[in-house]
């Protein structure tokens, strides 16, 4: 059987033109997807049933036992951490927020270690953004700043920018200019019309200099700024000003380097400045296929996009204090529920030391680095493969992922709803 127009649940591009061939409840071929997406669709070696740590061995347990364990763990905790959420569908994220409020815990999603700084900047100065379709059809200048889509978002270039047709561009490949700004010559830099190489940590200074140049205050700028010659900065500023429609896409090279959210704020303020001369927009290259959704769900339910502390019964938000890395590094939680992410593969050692000391339950289809820190792991269906649900693309467009095959695994939403019901019952008793 061939499933057409399947949605790829890998990166924030959320490509919705995938063809998946299924035989005997296994994916045997994938068309249109990039290598990353294909690997996810073809993924095998799933965990068979929930497991419980028993000394230095694992014991198979039932879903009921696993759900009961998680509910008891969360109810007895004084400050549980509910982390992850970007690798699951919006419906499960909703249940997660309800759970956090019920047990008075802290709920945080992976944006606190990726584009959280972008959101902090947006809270300061707003977000002049647009959908990917607008960029595809109109943009004649695209800037990739601190992001390397060839490796991380392979189809971004072919579907929306460098290699895409544009309705309002006569010859998109010729008319569309691409500028890449990075600290090293990435593969994306080698297909750019202009490559700006910045010294590590110099993004903020370069953005400030560009803002001043766009305002005509060129005299003050030193001859080089963070390794970039003033002449090149003036050339880039002129390219931007003479574009009909410019779009900036930034990645973790900007959000997670020195200055963090101040870099993004500066980039947004550069875009605002450029919009006095022409049309310019800026957007984040979101990583997980539904990390944008976790921000959306959290915001509409709690008022805040990530790092929400319910311990006092009301939502309190303060990244740097109520975010997972900070809480774990400072040993400020006493239990953790991990859903749809793999913190042990990404967090600093200090955080993992605390994760090893407290009870941890994880919902994940596969054994991963975090499994080593778990007391219980519950295998679930993979959204977009054997579970369906809503995800948000990197530009904020919600897309319903489809089920391409059927298995007996419950979805994240089903498992979390059972946990929630048990806890609610226990609290009402």
């Amino acid at each position, binding site marked *: 059987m061939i499933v057409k127009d399947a949605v790829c649940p890998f990166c924030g591009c959320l490509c919705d033109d995938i063809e998946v061939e299924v035989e005997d409840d296994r994916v045997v071929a994938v068309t249109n997807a990039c290598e990353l997406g294909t690997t996810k669709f073809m993924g095998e070696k799933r965990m068979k049933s929930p497991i419980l740590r028993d000394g230095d061995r694992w014991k198979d347990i039932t879903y009921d036992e696993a759900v009961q364990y998680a509910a008891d763990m969360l109810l007895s905790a004084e400050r549980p951490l509910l982390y992850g959420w970007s690798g699951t569908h919006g419906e499960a994220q909703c249940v997660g927020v309800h759970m956090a409020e019920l047990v008075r815990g802290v709920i945080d999603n992976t944006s606190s270690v990726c584009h959280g700084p972008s959101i*902090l900047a947006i809270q300061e100065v707003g977000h002049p953004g647009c959908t990917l379709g607008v960029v595809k059809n109109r943009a004649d200048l695209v800037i990739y700043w601190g992001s390397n889509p060839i490796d991380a978002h392979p189809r971004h270039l072919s579907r929306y920018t460098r290699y895409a047709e544009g309705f309002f561009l006569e010859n998109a490949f010729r008319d569309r200019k691409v500028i890449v700004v990075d600290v090293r010559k990435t593969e994306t830099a080698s297909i750019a019309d202009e490559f700006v190489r910045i010294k590590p940590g110099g993004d903020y200074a370069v953005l400030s200099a560009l803002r001043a140049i766009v305002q005509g205050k060129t005299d003050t700028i030193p001859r080089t700024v963070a390794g970039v010659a003033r002449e090149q900065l003036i050339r880039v500023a002129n390219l931007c000003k003479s574009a009909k429609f410019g779009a900036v896409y930034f990645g973790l090279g900007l959000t997670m380097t020195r200055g963090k959210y101040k870099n993004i704020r500066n980039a947004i303020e550069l875009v605002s400045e450029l919009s006095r001369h022409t049309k310019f927009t800026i957007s984040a290259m979101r990583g997980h296929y539904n990390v944008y959704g976790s921000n959306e769900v959290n915001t509409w339910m709690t008022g805040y996009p990530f790092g929400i502390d319910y311990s006092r019964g009301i939502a309190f938000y303060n990244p740097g204090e109520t975010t997972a890395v900070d809480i774990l590094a400072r040993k400020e939680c006493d239990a953790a529920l991990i859903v749809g992410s793999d913190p042990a593969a990404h967090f600093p050692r200090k955080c993992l030391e605390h994760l090893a000391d407290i009870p941890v339950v994880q919902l994940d289809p596969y054994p991963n680095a975090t499994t080593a820190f778990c007391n219980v792991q519950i295998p679930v269906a993979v959204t977009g493969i054997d579970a369906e649900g809503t995800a948000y693309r990197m530009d904020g467009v919600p897309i319903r992922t489809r089920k391409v095959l059927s298995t007996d695994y419950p979805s994240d939403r089903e498992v979390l709803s059972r946990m929630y019901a048990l806890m609610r019952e226990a609290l009402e008793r």
Partner: protein
Amino acid sequence: MKVTLALKPAARSFIPIEAESIVPKNFLDGTDLPVWRGNRELRLDEVFSVSVEGDADRTEDVEVVLSGETFRLKRVGEYMDGGRVTILGDIGMHCGNFMSGGTIEVRGNADGWLGREMAGGTIVCRGDAADYCAAGYRGGRKGMTGGTVEVFGRAGDFLAENIAGGTVIVHGDAGDMPGAEMRGGTLVVHGDCRRPGANMKGGSCYVYGTAQGMLPTFRKIGTVQHEGHTLIRFAGDIANRGKGNLFVKAYEYLD
């Protein structure tokens, strides 16, 4: 009146305790106050050994002394408007939030957001202050609007971010981006720091040491004498409106 609060050792010692009730004014009505450990509401005497000497009718006559593992205490002195709080050791985050009067003395180090959005009064920190000392809240446009914060050790990153009034003095070095988005008030760093005054549009920032990674968008005006130091005066940040004053002893660009 002197209220002494000694933190009792706890089993789950790592869970932070939110104690915004520890404000001198509240002790005029006794010591029956709530504090929170994680999601559990506890009485003050469940967490502290409490002793009171003398009595008082006015907030100004109340002194609160905190001892023990006080680095776990958050929000001590929040909305404080008078009296005195002395912390013998280190203090946790958000000490002196929204403070409008009185004095807080931290004998040890202070964690993040010391004196956040402070409007008046005095905070003295004998040790180091962590990030966001005398800063604002996420997404807010105004941080500190009045009062004084003096840190005798070093300060972390984003010192006095969004400061709109009042005075901040750091005797040691400061981290990255002190006085970011500054729009008023005075910031003095006796040691070195990185990228002072980023995107500032008002106020005065003094660096008696070296400004590393100096931003390219500050216009040099000349040298001035200030409190016995010869400083180079800049106007900036010209990427913004450029109406702030930045004075540095020495500077290095990231060129």
